[in-house]
């Protein structure tokens, strides 16, 4: 799967989509979902929860493992993709469409990589 050039990426394998009116979407990358294997459950925060850059806001479960999902920004959760709760496999099938949370009131943002830099990072450093 090609890494979309319209998104930005973190070193912990989350992607960020900047939407209109200062809201951003966060999900996990193809690299992450393929490392984790078939996902069976997703733990997401609630609307109104605060997220902090560099801290976990939720996690994804496969049969044999749990992995934190790290927020690259600080802000407030305005929407949660509840469909994922019943269909976590959407993250495996279309990782770049299966957004997990939408965040607004961004105060702090980690340094993010563009598609090319992220691909290079995956090749050299791995997970």
């Amino acid at each position: 799967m090609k890494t979309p050039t319209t998104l930005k990426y973190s070193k912990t394998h989350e992607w960020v989509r900047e939407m209109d009116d200062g809201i951003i979407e966060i999900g996990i990358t193809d690299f992450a979902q393929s490392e984790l294997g078939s996902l069976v459950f997703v733990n997401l925060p609630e609307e109104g929860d605060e997220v902090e850059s560099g801290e976990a806001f939720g996690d994804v479960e496969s049969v044999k493992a749990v992995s934190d999902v790290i927020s690259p920004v600080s802000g407030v959760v305005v929407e949660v993709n509840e469909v994922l709760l019943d269909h976590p496999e959407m993250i495996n099938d279309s990782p770049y469409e299966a957004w997990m949370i939408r965040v607004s009131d961004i105060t702090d943002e980690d340094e993010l990589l563009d598609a090319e830099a992220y691909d290079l990072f995956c090749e050299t450093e791995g997970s």
Partner: protein
Amino acid sequence: MKLIFERSYKGRGSAHLPKCDVPVCQLPESMMRSEKPALPEVSEIELVRHYTELEKQTFGVNDGFYPLGSCTMKYNPRINEEMAALPGFTNIHPLQNTDTVQGCMEVLYKAEEYLNEITGMDRFTMQPSAGAHGEFAGLLLIRAWHLHKGNTKRTKIIVPDSAHGTNPATVSMAGYETVNVPSTKDGLVDLDALREAVGENTAGLMLTNPNTFGLFDPNIGEITKIIHDAGGLCYYDGANLNAVMGQARPGDMGFDCVHLNVHKTFSTPHGGGGPGAGPVGCKAFLAPFLPGPVVEKEDGVFKFKTPELSFGRVRGFHGNFLVIVKTLSYILSLGREGIPEASANAVLNANYLLNRISDDYDIASGPHCMHEFVITLERLQKETGVSALDVAKRLIDYGMHPPTMYFPLNVKEALMVEPVETESLETLDEAAEIFKQVMKEARENPELLHGAPHNAPIGRPDEVNAARNPVLKYTP
């Protein structure tokens, strides 16, 4: 196999009770449930056949070699079972007057005495019902001691990254924060990293020795000293005691409290996942904080006493008493020379099997081990695509229970092998041949392993579906 509900036929049953010989009373209608519970209705013969069928699809220690690393699947002596079934133990109510249960109290007292001797501790509580439960009680002991001294700033417990998952989970349950300390490439505690990790907020350390790689850490004296110097206490996870019982004692290594898994080290049966017991022992200075009551002997009479600063109970009544009966019976059977004989042969068997298969398998834990060793299939997977899981599943086809899979976490494609002392030389030689054969198959015919097991009652279950769409009970 049919579910028992699928064998059910309305109106079937057995007559276990006589008719009521007092006037029958009904409870007020408003209190009664509207629908009877849909329990199965089977005759006794169907019940027996049902469970006979289930037994045929259950692999026990009585069925074959069971080298499940970290679980110590040793033989479960029948005498222990018979003694635990004596009516003088089973038909005793836990709240009887103590002068009618002096025998039970003596069982607890003697077991405590022997376990103190074996572990180098001063007091034991038999309340914890499993290893994880013991870990919880042990950490609460440490916590109670710190709180009593006013050490409220000590909020962290150090745990090596090779630890069993129960350790950090227990740390959280006890209200502490886990500090992971890395292992060296030999799987031992990195002393420099440990020195960095301790400080004013260190409450203690949780460690098992030998560790989860099956290696005895020779620096253990230094490790416990580092923690003590920093003001913390040391907790011994006794899961691996089978390697060293009678050879070395955690109390002499600098540990302040321990838990034991009697269903591992002391031969009480695993029962398909319990009941076991996780007695917790401690040095005298921690004894006042133990869960109560404990058994004391005064003028030849056994009495129950609750320690003055007890942190409370971790379960009802006295713990898994009948399991402690089995423990006592085992210790009496082995005795002074039998206990070190068991551990020495556990270590011998493990090294022997390691030696026999090390030409074919990469041993992550090195050429020498204690009672268990860790194989890694990382290279095999890179070269042939065959994983640890595939190897484990193929071993099933040869009538062997697979070793523990994917543990410890810091070894890729791990299989942990623990042969135990109750296996014979012939069994070990046979097992070695099976291991070699499976390796050969992995290289010559990987597909065979990917599809294994072939000779088991079922093939590989779809675990993803089981987790995504949980069906956790029968609905007609």
